Structures are given as structure tokens and as C-alpha cells.
């Protein structure tokens, strides 16, 4: 299933840039375009109070529906590898090597989650959790991922919009 989806993405990748130019501004981008198409420039962000990134990374507001697809995408480092999310009970085999994300939306602000996803090493230096929006200070990144973030800037915003609905 995922293999099919993935090859679809690869197949489409060449056309993505062109398609984006014509697509209406509201159409959601394909889930993994940023992993296979042209490398998008890294959005700059500002960390406030060591624990938050208050400003969204994109103009377009986060879309919780797409965000749900982003964080459950089994072929792109889904949170479910490590975390349990009780409200996603239709996804079996959730990981149990990190704290449950139960009630996340009541425990965190969007600004806090943004830093958590962008670069959790700034919060817990030796954490196992990957930085979803970072390209520097990595060792021997696989060729096809060099210079690419795990999530696109829009993925981060959409993921946060979904995660805030976990109450």
C-alpha cells in the first residue's frame, strides 16, 4: 500500500513544481513532495523563551485534517513509531517507547509544540525524538534526504493543528 503510494509520489515528483504553480493557493500539497521534489528553502524561525516558536512557519493556517494524515503517514517517521495516541485507535501497533500523547492539546500550546517538532534537541539535548524541521548537524544522512527536513513547513503547521485537537 505504502509502496504504491510512495512510487506514486516519486512518479509525480517531477511534475509537482509545475503543478504547484497553477494549483489554487488552497489546494493541499501532496504529503511527501518535499522529500522527492525540488528542495524547498528552509523557513527561518525565532525561538522565544527557550521553549516556544510563537510564529507559524507558513502563511497558510494549519489544516487538522491534512495534519492527521501527516502524523500517521507510516512511510515518513510517524509519531506512532514511538508514541501512543489514544484518539487514533484505528491505527494498530502504536509504539510504546516514548510518553503517550494523550491530552496533548490541553497540555501544550501550539507555540510549544512547534519547537517540540521543529527541534526537540533544544529542549532535551540527548532525546531520541527526531527533529522534524532541521537539516544541519546531522551525520551521514542518506543521499536522497540530504538538505531535506522530515516534515515540510506546512506539514509542521498542519501537524500542530491536528495535535491541538487531541484533548
Amino acid at each position, binding site marked *: 500500500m505504502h509502496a504504491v503510494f510512495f512510487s506514486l509520489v516519486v512518479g509525480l515528483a517531477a511534475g509537482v513544481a509545475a503543478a504547484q504553480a497553477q494549483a489554487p493557493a488552497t489546494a493541499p500539497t501532496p504529503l511527501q513532495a518535499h522529500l522527492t521534489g525540488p528542495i524547498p528553502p528552509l523557513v527561518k524561525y525565532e525561538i522565544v523563551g527557550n521553549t516556544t516558536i510563537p510564529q507559524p512557519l507558513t502563511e497558510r493556517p494549519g489544516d487538522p485534517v491534512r495534519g492527521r494524515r501527516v502524523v500517521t503517514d507510516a512511510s515518513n517517521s510517524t509519531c506512532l513509531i514511538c508514541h501512543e495516541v489514544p484518539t487514533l485507535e484505528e491505527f*494498530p501497533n502504536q509504539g510504546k517507547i516514548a510518553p503517550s500523547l494523550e491530552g496533548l492539546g490541553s497540555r501544550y500550546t501550539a507555540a510549544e509544540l512547534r519547537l517540540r517538532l521543529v527541534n526537540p534537541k533544544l529542549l532535551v539535548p540527548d532525546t531520541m525524538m527526531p527533529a522534524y524541521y532541521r537539516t544541519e548537524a546531522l551525520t551521514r544522512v542518506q543521499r536522497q534526504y540530504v538538505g*531535506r527536513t522530515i516534515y515540510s513547513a506546512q506539514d509542521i503547521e498542519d501537524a500542530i493543528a491536528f495535535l491541538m485537537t487531541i484533548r
Partner: protein
Amino acid sequence: MKALLALLALVLATAVTAPAHAQGWPLERYTVEDRNSGYFYLGRQTRLLQDDDFQNPGMFAVDQGAALWRRVDGTQGRSCQTCHQNAADVMKGVATRYPAYDAKSGGIINLELLINRERVEKMGAAPFAYESPELLALTAYVSHQSRGMAKNIDISGPAAPFFEQGKEFWNTRRGQIDISCAMCHDDRAGMLLRGDVISQGQTNGHPMYRLIWQSISSTHRMFEWCNTSMRAEPYPLGSPEYLALELYVAWRGRGLPVETPSVRK
């Protein structure tokens, strides 16, 4: 038939999601101090599959290896058997000592590369490709002769710097995911990563029959798989980097019994 069996085995194995720390299972044999064989983390069905030589799909490779042991090949008109005679006698214990420092090459050598060197130098035959069924079969056959014997890896003297290199590899975060081997296999063994119980990443059963690949598989292929799952650029199979890593990982499992052919998910 074998393929069907393997498929059935896969279905059975994946149906069991939690480790069957079955009461009364003779697990003492698979544990030395704090070191556990991958067997320890398997579900009941996979353990049964490994334990039964008639069902263990890895035994197919061992049988093939036995045939290759006797097969004459190369310009010298020899087989392994021509020089070594009965593998059950002369190969007993060999797998417990590899990988090891090799004075001839000044580096680390493992069983796969040793077998290939014998082919080239003693038989005048071409080396087998690293992950070829032939090389895996011979490696499995040779390792199988040590089944039940404790791994005993020498890391002293000239092996020491390679051991350090392997240890550093193990502990270095790598790839886009930025995690180390140690983070999974030292710190989180026994925990659930998605539906899989993470083991300690021991190699005492290798070459193993891996159910998701449906084939006998080398240690280096497993390294490659773990590397790419971290989205790290893998090293070539048989490379000095993986040989040093294999030395460290084998030492890490010192005392664990050779299980070849092990069955793993």
C-alpha cells in the same frame, strides 16, 4: 513448498505482537548476564519455528551449504571438503571466534570474507557476491557446526582499534532521523517500536532467516536495513566500517550461543 511455509510462518509470526515470555520456556540458554539473544524477544510461534529443524526455513540454506562444501570448483579441482574433510569435526567452534583480526589483511575478517578468500586462494575459484545465496549457504553451514557454543570474540591487541571504531559507530547518531544503534538496542530493548519488540540487536544467530525478507540474511544486510531505517547512507556490505561494527556487536553478545540458522522477524 518452502515459500509457502515461509509465508505461513510470517503470518503466524506477525499475529503474535507481544513477546511470549512464556513461562517455563528454557530461556536461560539464550541469556548471559544482561545479554539476551534475539530469540528472547520472539513470539512463541517464531521460537517454535526456529527450534524445529524440519520447519526452520533457514535449514534450507544449511543443506545447500552442505552440498556446496562438497562441490568441486575452481582451477585447483578442489572442494572445501578436499582440504577440510568433515565439517562437523573441523568447523566446530570456528563461528564462535569470528569476526576476528586478520594479520594477512591487517584488518577485520568475518566468516563470509574468509570463505571467499579460501575459494580464491585455495580453490582458484571466483569469490561469491556478498549477499549471494551461495555465500550465505556456506556461511550458515559453517556457523551451524558451532550451534549451542558460546560466542567468544577476541578484541585484544591489534583488534582493539577496530573494536573502538565499531563501538563508536554503534553509539553515533546518524541519518536524517538522528538516532544511534544504542538508542534502540541498548536503551529500549524489550519495548515496542510500532508493532515490533526491539531486541538487543545481537548477531549470535546469523546468518538468520528473516521472515519479512523470506530469505537467509547476513549481519551486514541487517546493518544496512537499520542504517536506512535511520535514513543514513549505508556502507557497502563487507566494508571495513561494517566489519568493525560486526566485531563490536559480536563482542557485545559474548557468551551467547551460536543459533544459526536463527529465525527472526
